[in-house]
């Protein structure tokens, strides 16, 4: 069977907890050092939301997860929240959503999230923010769609694009948010928010792909 959205989100929450120290350390270099603790608060809140909404359909569940992320505050809370809310909206908007994961649906979600975060935070790619991991993910999906790649392959590439995007922020100079004042000194360390986003994507995608592979081999047998 395919991994449920719930499983993917739980895996992401675990990844955030496991990465807590690293996220705090990254944020301390150019920011105020709270990204690890703040995201760990987020993981807690998200787990509680999953617990309290066992029967919610995907779009509703994502909206609850968005509210959980909003509840952590900071700059990052509203950013994740708006991205997730617009993702939920994109799911709802896709006609006759039947639970099937298709490339165009994924791309619509990614574009919605990027658009929402941009609208809220006014950052552009290259400003060394979460957008520098989100945008490559969306662009990778767009390229895969143009090439008509299989969904699982596209998802795998999108994950790698997010990871590469997060890693590439290391070479950037922060120019927005708390970290901006560090200017040149911020170069050499990846952005905390981009890193947490890549962690989340990796955990969710790996959970999804593992379950998908299991299903395939089960079918083959």
């Amino acid at each position, binding site marked *: 069977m395919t991994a449920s959205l719930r499983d993917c989100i739980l895996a992401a929450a675990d990844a955030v907890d496991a990465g807590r120290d690293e996220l705090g350390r990254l944020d301390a270099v150019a920011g105020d*050092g*709270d990204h690890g*603790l703040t995201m760990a608060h987020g993981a807690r809140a998200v787990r509680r939301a999953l617990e309290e909404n066992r029967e919610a359909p995907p779009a509703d569940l994502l909206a609850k997860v968005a509210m959980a992320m909003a509840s952590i505050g900071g700059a990052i809370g509203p950013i994740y929240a708006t991205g997730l809310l617009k993702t939920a909206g994109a799911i709802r908007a896709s006609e006759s959503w039947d639970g099937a994961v298709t490339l165009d649906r994924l791309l619509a979600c990614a574009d919605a999230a990027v658009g929402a975060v941009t609208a809220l*935070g006014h950052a552009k790619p290259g400003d060394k923010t979460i957008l520098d991991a989100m945008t490559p993910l969306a662009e990778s999906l767009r390229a895969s769609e143009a090439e008509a790649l299989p969904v699982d392959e596209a998802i795998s590439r999108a994950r790698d694009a997010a990871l590469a995007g997060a890693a590439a922020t290391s070479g950037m100079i922060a120019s927005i948010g708390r970290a901006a004042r560090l200017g040149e000194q911020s170069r050499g360390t990846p952005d905390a928010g981009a890193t947490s986003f890549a962690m989340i994507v990796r955990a969710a995608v790996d959970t999804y792909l593992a379950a998908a592979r299991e299903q395939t081999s089960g079918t083959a047998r």
Partner: protein
Amino acid sequence: MTAAQGTGAYHGFYKKLINDPFDAVDEALEGFAGAHSDLVRLSAPHVIARRVAASAPKVGLVIGGGSGHEPAFAGYVGRGMADAAACGNVFASPPPDVILNAIHEASSGRGVLMGYGNYAGDVLNFGLAAELAIAEGIEVREIRVTDDVASAAPQEIEKRRGIAGDIIVFKCAGAAAERGDSLAEVERIAVEANLATRSMGVALAGCEVPGAGRPTFELGADEISIGMGVHGEPGISRGPLEPADAIAGALVAAIVADMGPQAGREIALLVNGLGATATMDQYILYRGARRALEAAGFHVARSYVGEYITSLEMAGASVTVTTLNDELHELLDAPARTTRFVQ
């Protein structure tokens, strides 16, 4: 699972009197509300409100920001100052729902002013909360405090962050609200107090977000950072430790240069300890700052020395100068009955 989790002691760089780092803010707020139940109450999660609301409708003042700055912001809730404080996680703005709950506490029909330091997270969350409140029909305005001269050039004053100047701005706005001013008036006064207020700080040693396991920033054994922000954001210069008078002189010089020619003016002078710096040292820095300001022709009419807005156990202090006119002077001197500011 890090050592920081679970029920054992928290082992970080600094020895902290905390339990589980996750619970630090909730427990501190429970302690705060319990200790000062004559003045305040925890009216909703992360919201500290006045124990007794004002007897007549008035403009509400909501203040807030991340935790870790205690006694800010909850310490300024009470008669003559704020009606409610919205408290975030450590160094993280409170979320919109917490702020909205604070707005509900503060609202008595004459509108609400939100006051907070100018940080990206606070701007986002207070902005969202205002939208929600406005949708409910509550009139909401905001003042973003921008007193830290080290954080941006004079021509980009709207990019400056808020540090200890918060206290001056909140005090003046709170007094104006208490005497019955309209929302527009209270907002005007807050804007005026913010424009009249400039600060600059010095960091001597870092602090540690509970659970981080390490300090947010580290300075060399003999290194200080002039202009560093209250969360460890970098300042205008790093250099070796200097005598208190030299540091006071540097802070005052930067503030005075930013103010432009205002010699002869009456000012309020606030020296704020960031957490670990001895109170004795704060008074020595105050003395140096006052002498430097007097040498520059200012008249120090009001003084405040102590830990007004901290950064956990960060070592260092800041100097804040507010140029006073009769109105601001009167508002600063108006009675206040909060946990930290009583007069």
